[in-house]
């Protein structure tokens, strides 16, 4: 057991799985000697050699396209896309090939790969370094989308991804890369994809969130005297609708919190599912605390955009008062 932050937990997961499976190969921009701009792959090239951890030319579509071929050829590539905003150039390869390969070949070819992407705002980064595009990929059949909110979860979820036979986008909330430390077992463990975690139990209201926003939700809950249940989705797709429905059926009230823009954010899907599953149990309309349908502002104003504990607290109050 070691006290690790999220970066260290991911690094540890990579090391342990690479030692077990020589088909895992890491590639991306600046991930070798430099260890990645966030140092997530620190020391891995030295440890595993240039054939297993290598830098590519600066081209995201190329990174994903190459990875698709590597996966079809029997490896489990782990491409790193340096920042969320740079997923754009890789979109075609992800959506037109990675996501469809198993289906369009009826299983003859598959693309087992784990795309690692630092995600979200809150670190005073330049333009296009603070985006939250998870809903776009959750909307793409054939992909899985994962976003941990703690070092422990990051390790367990990443190990699960590295054993997945299908392509996964593993979003790493950069705002909490180093903000939280917790005990992370050295021993092997996995957390199943598609299973949410009840962070804390409660009876009066359910909060559903994921990624860095979970931390904001915790702060709001700690300030509240009401009995609030917090669900961390962990996996955006497959979506653990049962966990959400079970909780909301019990509490009758739900607040969804995410950084991504409101319209068509994954909160919209959750809200629709709650209506279908818990309509008769609902005591109040489902509420959302989300980013806005604006371009993600530059860092001077980013805290105005990102959902924070006070906004979550107000949503809790209003939803309970309904």
């Amino acid at each position, binding site marked *: 057991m070691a006290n690790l932050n999220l970066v260290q937990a991911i690094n540890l997961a990579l090391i342990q799985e690479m030692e077990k499976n020589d088909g895992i190969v890491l590639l991306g921009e600046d991930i070798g000697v430099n260890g990645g701009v966030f140092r997530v792959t620190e020391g891995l090239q030295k440890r595993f050699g240039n054939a297993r951890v290598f830098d590519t030319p600066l081209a995201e579509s190329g990174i994903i396209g190459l990875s698709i*071929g590597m996966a*079809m050829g029997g490896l489990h590539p782990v491409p790193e896309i340096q920042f969320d905003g740079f997923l754009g150039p890789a979109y075609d390869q992800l959506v037109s090939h990675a996501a469809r390969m198993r289906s*369009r*070949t009826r299983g003859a070819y598959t693309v087992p790969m784990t795309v690692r992407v630092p995600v979200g705002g809150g670190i005073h980064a330049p333009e296009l370094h603070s985006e939250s595009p998870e809903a776009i990929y959750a909307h793409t059949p054939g992909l899985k989308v994962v976003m941990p909110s703690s070092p422990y979860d990051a390790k367990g979820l990443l190990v699960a991804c590295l054993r997945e*036979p299908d392509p996964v986008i593993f979003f790493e909330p950069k705002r909490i890369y180093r903000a939280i430390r917790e005990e992370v077992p050295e021993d092997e463990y996995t957390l199943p994809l598609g299973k949410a975690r009840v962070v804390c139990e409660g009876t009066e209201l359910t909060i559903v969130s994921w990624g860095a926003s979970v931390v904001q939700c915790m702060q709001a809950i700690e300030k509240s005297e009401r009995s609030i249940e917090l669900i961390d989705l962990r996996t955006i797709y*497959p979506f653990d609708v049962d966990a959400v429905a079970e909780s909301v059926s019990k509490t009758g009230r739900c607040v969804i919190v995410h950084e991504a823009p409101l319209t068509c954010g994954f909160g919209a899907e959750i809200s629709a599912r709650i209506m279908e599953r818990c309509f008769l149990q609902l005591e109040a309309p489902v509420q959302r605390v989300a980013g806005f349908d604006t371009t993600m502002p530059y860092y001077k104003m980013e805290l105005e955009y990102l959902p924070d504990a006070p906004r979550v607290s107000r949503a809790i109050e209003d939803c309970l008062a309904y």
Partner: protein
Amino acid sequence: MPITTAFETKIEHISILDDKGNFDEKLGKGLIPDADLVKLYEAMVACRHLDEVAFRLQRSGRMGTYPQNMGQEATSLGAAYVLRKDDWLVTCYRENCGLFWRGVPKEAILLHWMGDERGNAMPRPHFATPIAVPLGTQMLHAAGLTLAAKYRGLDRIACTFFGDGASSEGDFHEACNFASTLEIPVVFVLQNNFWAISTPSTRNSAAPTFAQRGLSYGMPCLQVDGNDLFATVYATKLASEYTRKTNKPYFIEMVTYRLGDHTTADDAKRYREQAEVDMWKGRDPIMRIKNFMIARKLWDETKEAALLERVAVENSEAVARAENIATPHHDEFFDAMYEVLPADLVIQRDTMHTHSLGQDPSQLPAEARERAAQMSAAAANHH
């Protein structure tokens, strides 16, 4: 300071058997043994015939949109003939001849265009990837497939095909750049057929050749007459030997011509002159080999008649296999979405004849709940 030359090169053009029947003995002698030449010719005739069959199937409503290969048979065939059986063939959609030579069943290609994904289930032992539809994306896969082979210590290269139009795509550049900087043994074959639907090749490159595109990646580049089977064989031999030996990529432009429309949904008369098409008909790759073989007493009209008869039977058998494949069960398209279908998708599948509330009928009124349950039970019955 005097101005110096930083880089200088030339692009060579290879032609061995031209459209007048002239044969370059120096380059061509012994390149293709007679027995093989006969087989290759037969393969081109069979491919051309299947093109005609497919065209008629489309016109009679038995097949969806189909892109004819007509005129380009010698490009992919020359490559497939030279490559080893376990070298990757990573193609677009006008390389039927090479794929059939590799052993890909004809019905696989037919099924694809008949709107059935099972046509893409390319048998693994053929080392041929499924038809790639978004233009210019598959060359990166060729690089990845070969990198994986190299990583595993296998002596395997890839040959990837794309058109003059696809070479305008960004992924083309990325694939060339990745293969050359990361030292991945890929033979890039650009089929310049002069037309990307209605866009002339001059709108896709303003350079004198497409071959020189490869120069900026440090690749050896070659332009060949793509309607000359001898030249495509020669070029692929050169390229694959270089690639295999050095682990570095090689770039070939095969100059050919799309004799047919882009697809059966296209009408090329809207944008190109018949005179141009007629001129290229005179440079037909199949006719060239036929005349060559007749001159060398390898072929005659009796053999031709027997071949056509045999090809007609084989192709109609392939069509029958494609058409007679059992219709998939109604929810088959769910099956291969993931190795293990997520629970939510299982519910969507089993309730596909109802609506999202029907997926969890607990909140429906009693009567509707019962109906939803019955429909779901019926839908899920075969699983």
